[in-house]
């Protein structure tokens, strides 16, 4: 099974728009929306939920006021400032470390489960999808990303799919790390702005840190052609393939308003500009598929043969 993660560093560069388009072009894929704290993929793919489970994040500490003698040990040892003067725990500050439970001499502190969100197994018009909703202000979004990825694997096994396409979160922190570790290929969607370039360099460093092969695609290349050239030069020097450039086009917004991928929108509307954009996306996806086939050959030679025999 091959896993492709789409990330960007900077938000709003077109990750979800392009991942949804790729999902509509891939024929043997499971989709995983791993941007768990601002998940948008479902707005386009409109998944029908097959199964829903509560997701338990890190536990949260609770103090029993009946047993508490107010000795202050928990407050003293908590490094996150989660216990207030009245010996109540602020659930947004508590990181669930449980140090308070071991320093309390009265056994007044216990760890309680908390539902930090929900995970969903779904079906879409392009195949199975794993996604989630993180509760408001919850910790451990990285853990939830891992849960979505493991659900996507289950779906892939169940539906005999050979590819998981992961829509990743912005940034380089815990959710981004959880979305790329163990992936076979990372695709970075970048826009040619100073912020886009800065953030691209940080995510390329992150992918290199975890030793994952990386590809780059430039979106809205024509808002700053000079910066586009800079990105291409930088990537070439770093040995990172740039798969293509997509122009600025409000097809992304129009398609989104119609709950369609850009491919569907272009197919349903006969505008030259839109069709050209969709074709560019098709070309980019074709080159990704070629690279993915290479990755699969290298990794587990016998498996594709077995699949072909089926």
């Amino acid at each position: 099974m091959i896993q492709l993660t789409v990330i960007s560093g900077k938000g709003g560069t077109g990750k979800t728009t392009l991942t949804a388009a790729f999902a509509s072009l891939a024929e043997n894929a499971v989709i995983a929306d791993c941007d768990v704290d601002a998940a948008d993929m479902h707005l386009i793919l409109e998944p029908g939920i097959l199964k829903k489970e509560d997701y338990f994040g890190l536990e949260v500490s609770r103090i029993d006021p009946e047993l508490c003698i107010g000795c202050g040990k928990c407050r003293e040892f908590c490094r996150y400032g989660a216990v207030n003067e009245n010996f109540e725990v602020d659930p947004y500050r508590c990181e669930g470390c449980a140090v308070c439970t071991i320093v309390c001499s009265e056994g007044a502190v216990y760890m309680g489960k908390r539902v930090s969100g929900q995970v969903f197994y779904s079906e879409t018009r392009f195949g199975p999808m794993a996604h989630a909703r993180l509760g408001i202000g919850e910790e451990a979004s990285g853990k939830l990303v891992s849960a979505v990825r493991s659900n996507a694997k289950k779906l892939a096994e169940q539906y005999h799919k050979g590819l998981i396409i992961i829509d990743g979160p912005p940034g380089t922190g815990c959710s981004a790390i959880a979305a790329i570790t163990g992936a076979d290929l990372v695709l970075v969607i970048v826009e040619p702005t100073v912020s886009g370039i800065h953030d691209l360099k940080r995510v390329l460093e992150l992918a290199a840190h975890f030793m994952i092969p990386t590809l780059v695609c430039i979106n809205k290349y024509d808002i700053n052609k000079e910066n586009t050239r800079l990105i291409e030069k930088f990537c070439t020097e770093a040995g990172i393939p740039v798969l293509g450039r997509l122009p600025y086009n409000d097809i992304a917004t129009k398609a989104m308003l119609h709950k369609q991928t850009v491919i569907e929108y272009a197919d349903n509307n006969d505008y030259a500009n839109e069709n050209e954009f969709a074709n560019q996306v098709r070309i980019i996806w074709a080159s990704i598929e070629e690279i993915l086939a290479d990755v699969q050959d290298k990794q587990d030679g016998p498996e594709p043969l077995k699949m072909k025999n089926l």
Partner: protein
Amino acid sequence: MKIVIASGKGGTGKTTVSLNLALALSDVQLFDCDVEEPNCNLFLGFDLEKVEDVVCPVPVINQEKCSICRQCSDFCRYNALAALPGRILFFPSLCHGCGGCTVLCPENAIREVQRPLGVIEKAKGESYPEFYRGLLNIGETMTSAVIKRLKKYIDDRKIAILDAPPGTACPVIASVEGMSYCVLVTESTPFGLHDLRLAVDVVRTIKIPFGVIINRYGLGDSRVEEYCNAEGIPVLLKIPNDRKIAELYSQGIPFVREMPEWREKFLGVSEAIKLQLAVKEELTI
């Protein structure tokens, strides 16, 4: 007054609003709290100097004293310690620095050292605006720890503007918590509206007064405005979907510098915020 600029969806214009607002006002401190991808200084071009390392206390195990009782590895909620038959293994990047293992160890075999997670930097000398940022090291996950350190540099006598990270998870809470006002920047697209609702849930949960700025106004449809009207959320400003603004952004130029008529509009935003806060105070009295 401490104003935090947040959004839910990434790429809606948090940094644009933070910069232009900071440049329009006087006696301002600007904090880049998007420590995973800090972008403000790309537009300001200040020389930065490190003011502090952000560290996390992590255990060092004295293998000679360790009796491999497994209490520490059984306790650690982050799976940062694992017991092998012959020794305890430590995975630094998983450790949250809670100190539990040190407290528990019956052999006193654990001491703590400070592991760097990132840095706090500030613009050298006298800068305008006064500028601080956090930067998380690549491969690190303790985003909120860096944000919390960064916020210690807020000077209550000045106006503080904080550029928050995207999303609705813990780094956003770490940025928004304790601030006097939250500006939510959105765009009028289905993604923008969906993520705005999530962000509104966050600020309502932590009970901070807030308003909305609609960026790339004219793109998409009118559902964001309708939502704000229906919910009684003030729309503080609409920034049009203007190619010139996008191009200035791509070059790293805050648009109030090239389009001075916008200075007034950002001043208007701060006046509207002050008014909203004053009304709220009156109501609570």
